[in-house]
């Protein structure tokens, strides 16, 4: 019986050992494996350990892990590692090592203490995986990010400084360019007032022309300033009652409508999300155009309406004015573009450029359609429609 038991036990042991050997072979196939004694001396190193560290097995056995120390990790890190496994706990982390030829490699490391009967570490098994490539990729991403951030910082600084210069510039324009114009206009007027009786009519007419020129330049300066400010001014969005804005705009245009017969047809206007003060400028410009270019009609018809879209709300102003040739339609929204002679219709040519810039800053666009001699329709959209 005993012999049979013994044989049985021996067979079981053999099986167990073979299984253990197979497992170890499988592990060796996959991982970098080292076994050290409680003092940290390397007792076992598999082929993968030799391959990655570029040391031969003979060079490794009997040495401690300082042989592959990269000096990358702070002392605290190493101390913590030893403290963990010294207490019999598993340590897991990423370690940078130095190979024999001085090159560095990274390993994802698990150190498992094997304990003796009294719970003291008898040996440590370190199982590692090469993560050098992953670390390199991570570094690259980090460096790229840092470079990108640096570039953003630089560009922002450049933009801010350009913005400041622009602000200083328009400040100077607003202040210094207007003063001489005031002098031209003011002293021309003073001549007419003080010496009018001494001047022939033609002389007075010249002075009035000088005044008109100065005043027109004043208007140009003002419009340009408004225009340049539009790109800098932050858009402060809130729910905007477009119907109210149109009423406000019409009220401000009161003078222009004097002595005119205007049939105003204002439809129900959908509210939108936008900057009320800027959108009011859009309406003022479009409506003053409509009033202006219907000036020669017996009865001007101005229709204001809107339609809801999925991603934007569309508004329009239609008039029965003189219209324009569609061949010039794309020029319309440029700064200082005028399609009509000064004597016929006054204006600085900045209005629609202002409209276009404001609409763009609301994620929309502006366009126009017209039949020469019959009227024009100006459209614009504001981002945010039924879908939002």
């Amino acid at each position: 019986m005993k012999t049979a038991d013994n044989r049985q036990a021996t067979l079981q042991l053999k099986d167990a050992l073979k299984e253990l050997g197979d497992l170890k072979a499988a592990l060796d196939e996959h991982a970098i494996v080292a076994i050290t004694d409680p003092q940290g001396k390397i007792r076992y190193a598999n082929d993968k350990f030799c391959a990655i560290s570029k040391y031969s097995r003979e060079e490794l056995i009997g040495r401690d892990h300082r042989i592959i120390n990269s000096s990358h990790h702070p002392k605290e890190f190493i101390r913590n590692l030893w403290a963990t496994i010294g207490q019999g706990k598993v340590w897991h982390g990423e370690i940078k090592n130095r190979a024999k030829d001085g090159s560095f490699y990274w390993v994802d490391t698990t150190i498992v203490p094997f304990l003796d009967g009294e719970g003291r570490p008898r040996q440590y098994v370190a199982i590692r995986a090469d993560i050098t490539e992953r670390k390199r990729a991570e570094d690259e991403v980090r460096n790229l990010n840092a470079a990108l951030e640096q570039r953003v910082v630089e560009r922002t600084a450049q933009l801010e400084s350009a913005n400041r210069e622009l602000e200083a510039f328009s400040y100077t324009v607003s202040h210094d360019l207007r003063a001489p114009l005031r002098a031209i206009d003011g002293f021309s007027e003073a001549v007419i007032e003080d010496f009018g009786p001494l001047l022939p009519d033609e002389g007075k007419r010249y002075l009035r022309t000088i005044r008109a020129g100065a005043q027109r330049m004043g208007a140009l300066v003002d419009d340009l300033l408004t225009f340049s400010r539009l790109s800098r001014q932050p858009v402060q969005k809130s729910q905007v009652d477009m119907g109210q804005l149109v009423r406000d705009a019409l009220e401000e245009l009161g003078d222009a409508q004097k002595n005119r017969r205007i049939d105003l047809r204002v439809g129900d206007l959908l509210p939108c999300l936008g900057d009320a003060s800027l959108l009011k400028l859009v309406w003022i410009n479009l409506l003053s155009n409509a009033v202006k270019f219907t000036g020669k009609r017996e009865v001007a018809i101005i229709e204001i309406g809107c339609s809801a879209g999925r991603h934007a709300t569309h508004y329009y102003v239609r008039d029965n004015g003189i219209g324009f040739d569609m061949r010039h339609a794309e020029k319309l929204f440029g700064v200082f573009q005028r399609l009509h002679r000064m004597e016929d219709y006054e204006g600085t040519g900045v209005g629609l450029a202002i409209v276009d810039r404001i609409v763009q800053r609301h994620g929309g666009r502006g366009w126009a359609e017209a039949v020469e001699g019959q009227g024009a329709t100006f459209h614009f959209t504001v981002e945010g429609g039924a879908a939002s």
Partner: protein
Amino acid sequence: MNDEAAARVLLVEDNPQDLELTLRALRRAGLGADVHVARDGVEALDFVLGPGGGSGAAPARRLQLILLDLKLPKCDGLEVISRLKSDPRTRAIPIVVLTSSREASDVARSYQLGANSYVVKPVEYDRFSNAVAQAGLYWLSVNQPPGLE
């Protein structure tokens, strides 16, 4: 325009043409005789507070209005507002900013410092002249200043 102590209006303006046009407008509004002119911020402060900041007694002025340009040599208009409005002796003198600048920051800063009114000089002389006359008449005839019998 000459008896300093009698001046009711202080006009602070460095641009000679604007100065002449403003004086013309004041004259036509019947206020020409009461105006004293300062050509920069320091001159303005010296006139109101006395030379060197006048740490002594309250300046014996009959000033009822200061028309103040913002962009001035030596000491700019905002500084003038700040000094006069933080001094209890001069705080009550109305200051009307009369400037070419319509920059929102200038408007906001002026009011913050205590300016009583802010007028952007129009290019058109008629409107300019109107604005000056209205400001002058309002502060000198309509407005009730403190401590005057």
